[in-house]
């Protein structure tokens, strides 16, 4: 068969336009009736998540309880955290999960194809991020320079499956994005004063998640779960048009000090700032 014949076949074989009129009408009605609920679901979920734990902790420490009770609670919490951290680090399952996720990736036909055509060394595949999701763990596995495989692992069945393989493209960060970042950072008076005194930002980092996923339970990983760090792309680049900003960071050098600002792009608020002398590695948190 000639190429031209194949193209002719393809061009002529298209299905005529078909439409499910009833479905179209019913779906529109359902979407519009639930517009407020559905479109606000993600934003309100992020806000809701913060309230219970923080209010319990702050409520406890602001209460009239005796000082010894507060001290005991703090000590107990620290011990519990240490034990948990040790248990997680020592657990052989952590490594097994990663191996299972990696195996699922390498066995996926689409990934095999990418590796074959891209001549990618399988040893270079690496886990970029780990997130807690409902009933499991989600791994983002970097394949070469341009792809990410998303692998879900069930906590109950230990079954792993590839959810998606996403392309990563890099395009310049817009000035508007940077301006927005500076605007949010300026809500901190100290940072505002530093910026107004002429200090310039010398490095931006933006962290992203795929926008189409930001509405699902996937968004639950944000910050609180501590399930892993999201993507980080340096300086003048972001990951594709379809990723949404999750967090952002930047550095300012001013009068011998290096200021670091960490911003939550979902709630458009500062997560933390810190400051350290330029020639020292140790940072001191000044606002949280």
């Amino acid at each position: 068969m000639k190429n031209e014949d194949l193209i002719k076949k393809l061009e002529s074989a298209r299905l005529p336009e078909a439409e499910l009129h009833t479905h179209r009408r019913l779906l529109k009605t359902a979407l519009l009736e639930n517009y407020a609920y559905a479109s606000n679901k993600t934003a309100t979920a992020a806000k809701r998540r913060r309230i219970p734990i923080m209010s319990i902790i702050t409520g406890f420490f602001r209460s009239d309880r005796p000082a010894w009770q507060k001290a005991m609670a703090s000590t107990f919490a620290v011990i519990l955290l240490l034990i948990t951290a040790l248990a997680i680090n020592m657990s052989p399952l952590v490594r097994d999960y990663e191996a299972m996720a990696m195996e699922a990736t390498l066995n996926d036909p689409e990934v095999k194809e990418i590796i074959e055509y891209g001549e990618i060394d399988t040893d270079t595949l690496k886990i970029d991020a780990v997130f807690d999701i409902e009933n499991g763990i989600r791994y983002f596995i970097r394949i070469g320079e341009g792809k990410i495989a998303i692998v879900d692992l069930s906590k109950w069945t230990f079954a792993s499956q590839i959810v998606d393989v996403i392309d990563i493209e890099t395009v310049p960060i817009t000035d508007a994005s940077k301006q927005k970042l500076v605007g949010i950072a300026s809500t901190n008076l100290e940072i505002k004063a530093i910026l107004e005194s002429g200090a310039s930002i010398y490095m931006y980092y933006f962290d992203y998640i795929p926008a189409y996923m930001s509405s699902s339970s996937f968004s639950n990983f944000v910050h609180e779960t501590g399930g892993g760090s999201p993507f980080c792309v340096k300086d003048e680049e972001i990951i594709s048009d379809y990723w949404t900003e999750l967090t952002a960071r930047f550095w300012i050098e001013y009068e011998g000090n290096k200021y670091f600002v960490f911003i939550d792009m979902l709630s458009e608020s500062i997560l933390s700032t810190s400051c350290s002398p330029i020639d020292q590695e140790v940072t001191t948190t000044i606002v949280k």
Partner: protein
Amino acid sequence: MDLESEKELVFRAKTDADAFGLLYDEYYPKVFGYVLNRTASIETAKDITSEVFLKALRTIKRFQWRNISFSAYLYRIAGNEIKNVYNRNKQLNLIKQDIIISEIINDVSVNAEIARLEADIQKHEDFLLLHKCIVKLPGIYQEVIVLKYFEKKSPGEICAILGKREGTVKSLLHRGLKKLKKLMEDNATF
């Protein structure tokens, strides 16, 4: 709809249900048609189209305008949903359980319409035979071939939908056609 009016409409749709409705009216046929050409199943096209618009509604507030048509975003979601259903053997259970669209999926009048359209599709033998070979290709080649030849998208539009550079799209198309040709030659029906 030109890009400027679409930008304005998308911006309004972040807070205005009617504006979202206009976007829906504009793109429902395109999304449905694309999914149908990819899956050759009215039932699946209906489920995936529902999921695409539900996801679009849930993410509209976060959508950042980057001078690319909103339809490219919808096609992208659709492509990922198709991948989920076919490549991963994952059923659309989540959609069917979704409170917003579960009633529509089980609607009797919709089911009658599906049966009629499914019967219509069976008459297009050329398409079905071609589709049988296309679905044997890896997902990315399916996407690029369907967008180019069935959806008649320009190279620029395909780049926007797939989030890939023009050179990559051209080589994908070239390799995809080569593979498809081989599949068809191996298939006695052609």
